[in-house]
């Protein structure tokens, strides 16, 4: 028996309308743990080169980890993956909330959705019973609106995934929504769900998950919570959640502003965590098992209307607030709400909209093409563009493909400031004085996303301080030039440690933000699964997954290699014009040296392709 796991993979074939449940292969659990590991391995095995990301042959894998749903801090994570319509390569994203644990209580660690339904439908899972129900009435409904309607129809016990109009219209950065404000935002997984005619997935689960030593696992779980309660960051970080970092990101000149033209926003104190608490907050909203809830559920009122909305999280503050220059927290929150209803990832949305604003400012696109004049700082223009994107109307149809594709169409030098890697828009950290963070973005398997390695703290402090300690310490007004020395090793190390949480099915924030020690996870993992693995041994599994996702990109992206690992030219050629990092940038020459060292340490060739002996070393040959 696989202790800790629910034990089954549920496969739902939309072509036949049938579902089947199979045992989790023991070698899959042994070699890939779960979550991101299951997603990566199953996608790699099941998808052939040449697969159309939006065709019925693409699959969606939804996977929990061995620790999901158990008694320990942050055990509510669920991972989603598919061949990405944003990058054409490996795509994954995760969310918290309550879906994954409930899927496990229904008896499934993992769900594979394949084929295509002949009309818009909802998948309803009630323990062993799986139904695919045509649901045309939900067509065009907002993601939050659809969740509310389904919750009323099915009952409180059901946990839901929904997509908005953007997912139905296959926008490359459409997100999966859950629990009225949590999203699997990145890489366009909702566009894949939309391409399969699935508007929602509902699950109810009432069963138990087998535990190797339930009594001691309970004792250990209780101890873990109590250790969390005692961390200094528990009290200082929790009140503001991820928005805690807004002021610090400005202090260190890493806050994307005006489509990443600069890295400091004068108005940052109007859109920081304190502004959320003072002006928006209704309640803290936690994911399953979470002692330190990031979710700041609030209510906003603007000239365009009022809305309840979860967040904004830091990333939304950075991209909608900083990059689009929305200078008031109410406006950031409202744009966040519009994204949530339309079912658009706030990170990509902010980067795409601010890219369009800069293109307009530079005369690359005209008022006629856009349908109106647009400018940074306008909530009305931001919402106008978001709605055009979700509906794929006019300019929105071009922007719906993301900045890489849009720049290829707009031309006129706009690719220099199309802020992405591999076709995925850059998240909320500007890096022209952060070589480690820059390399993190360049080499992340999904494209420019921060959750694989967040090396910014190390760039600034040269230490492994957790985020609450970094904020507490500040810079004292001194911000030296950050050199590449030692950064490659640090990035590689983080690319194993952070994604390991995604394979275990738990949240990394207790560890990364308030310094919760990793040995606790070793102990609870053994008590829950009966399998003894040191953290180092788990990191080795995470490294295997990293090699696999790189090889996935080699397999699926024609001509994939080094050229796919560069940031936009802006970051290599334009000095930062203002703020703490004024005058700084990182040349291509420096980045090439870092890439050479990175590839060598990874066991990849000069073009960034894993060598045969490297693949053999990880059992991937």
């Amino acid at each position, binding site marked *: 028996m696989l202790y800790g796991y629910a034990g089954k993979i549920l496969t739902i074939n939309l072509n036949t309308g049938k579902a089947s449940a199979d045992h989790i292969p023991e070698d899959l659990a042994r070699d890939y743990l779960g979550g991101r590991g299951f997603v990566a391995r199953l996608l790699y095995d099941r998808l052939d080169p040449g697969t159309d990301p939006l065709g019925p042959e693409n699959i969606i894998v939804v996977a929990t980890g061995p620790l999901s749903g158990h008694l320990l801090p942050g055990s509510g994570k669920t991972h989603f993956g598919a061949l990405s319509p944003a990058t054409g390569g490996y795509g994954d994203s995760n969310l918290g909330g309550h879906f994954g644990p409930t899927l496990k209580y229904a008896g499934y660690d993992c769900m594979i959705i394949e084929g295509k339904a002949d009309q818009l439908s909802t998948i309803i899972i009630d323990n062993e019973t799986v139904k695919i129900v045509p649901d045309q009435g939900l067509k065009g409904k907002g993601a*939050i609106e659809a969740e*509310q309607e389904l919750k009323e129809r099915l009952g409180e016990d059901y946990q839901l995934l929904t997509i908005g109009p953007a997912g139905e219209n296959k926008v490359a950065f459409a997100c999966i929504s859950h629990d009225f404000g949590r999203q699997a935002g990145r890489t366009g997984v909702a566009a894949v769900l939309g391409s399969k005619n699935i508007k929602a997935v509902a699950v109810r689960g009432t069963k138990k998950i087998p535990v190797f030593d339930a009594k001691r696992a309970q004792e250990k779980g209780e101890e873990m919570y109590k250790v969390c309660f005692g961390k200094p960051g528990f009290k200082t970080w929790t009140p503001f959640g991820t928005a805690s970092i807004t002021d610090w990101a400005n202090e260190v000149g890493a806050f994307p502003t005006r489509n990443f033209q600069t890295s400091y926003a004068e108005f940052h104190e109007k859109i920081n965590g304190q502004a959320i608490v003072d002006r928006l907050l209704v309640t803290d909203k936690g994911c399953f098992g979470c002692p330190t809830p990031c979710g700041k559920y609030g209510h906003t009122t603007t000239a365009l209307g009022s809305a309840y909305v979860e967040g904004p999280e830091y990333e939304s503050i950075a991209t909608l607030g900083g990059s689009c220059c929305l200078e008031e927290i109410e406006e950031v929150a409202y744009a966040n709400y519009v994204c949530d209803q339309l079912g658009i990832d706030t990170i990509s949305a902010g980067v795409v909209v601010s890219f369009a604003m800069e293109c307009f400012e530079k005369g690359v696109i005209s008022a006629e093409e856009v349908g109106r004049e647009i400018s940074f700082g306008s909530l009305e223009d931001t919402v106008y563009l978001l709605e055009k994107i979700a509906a794929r109307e006019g300019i929105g149809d071009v922007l719906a493909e993301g900045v890489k594709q849009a720049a290829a169409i707009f031309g006129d030098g706009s690719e220099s400031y199309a802020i992405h890697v591999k076709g995925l828009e850059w998240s909320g950290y500007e890096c022209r004085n952060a070589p480690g963070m820059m390399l993190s973005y360049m080499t992340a398997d999904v494209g420019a996303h921060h959750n694989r390695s967040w090396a910014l703290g190390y760039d600034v402090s040269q230490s492994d301080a957790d985020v609450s300690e970094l904020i507490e310490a500040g810079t004292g007004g001194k911000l030296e030039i950050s050199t590449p020395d030692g950064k490659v090793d640090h990035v590689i190390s983080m690319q194993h440690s952070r994604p390991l949480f995604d394979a275990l099915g738990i949240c990394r924030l207790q560890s990364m933000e308030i310094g919760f020690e990793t040995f606790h996870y070793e102990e609870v993992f053994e008590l829950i699964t009966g399998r003894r693995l040191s953290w180092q041994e788990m990191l080795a599994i995470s490294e295997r997954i990293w090699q696999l996702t790189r090889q996935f990109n080699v397999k699926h992206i024609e001509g994939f290699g080094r050229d796919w690992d560069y940031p936009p030219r802006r970051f290599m050629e334009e000095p930062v014009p203002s703020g703490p990092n004024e005058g700084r940038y990182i040349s291509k020459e420096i980045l090439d040296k870092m890439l050479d060292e990175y590839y060598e340490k990874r066991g990849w060739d000069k073009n960034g392709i894993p060598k045969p002996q490297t693949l053999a070393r990880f059992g991937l040959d």
Partner: protein
Amino acid sequence: MKLTVKEERCSGCNVCRVVCALHNAGAVQPSQALLKIKGEFPDPGTYKIAYCNQCGICADSCPEDAILERDGEYNIDYELCTQCLICIDSCPFDVMVVTESEYPAKCTGCGKCVELCPRQAVLADQG
């Protein structure tokens, strides 16, 4: 221990339910928890906590007098219980459950939910 709540502190994390089921049913199975959290979203954005306040209505409903009061807490005497499950439906807060072995279960006042609630939203009623 008799419970009380401060719903405005609740963040909906469900730690109380996980530890309740683990402690009282011996399983990672929150459907067996003896309290419930309901999120009211998107509007007004609040959590409601259903919990046993030891009102004793279950005891009044029991035809076998198998639910006994002691120091303000009601507990099921499983020697007397005939598994009629009338008490389940009588609970005004819907926080009793049927166990795997088809017996009723109710809050035992163990206090595990109070001990682990990260938000101090579930508390011991000091009277």
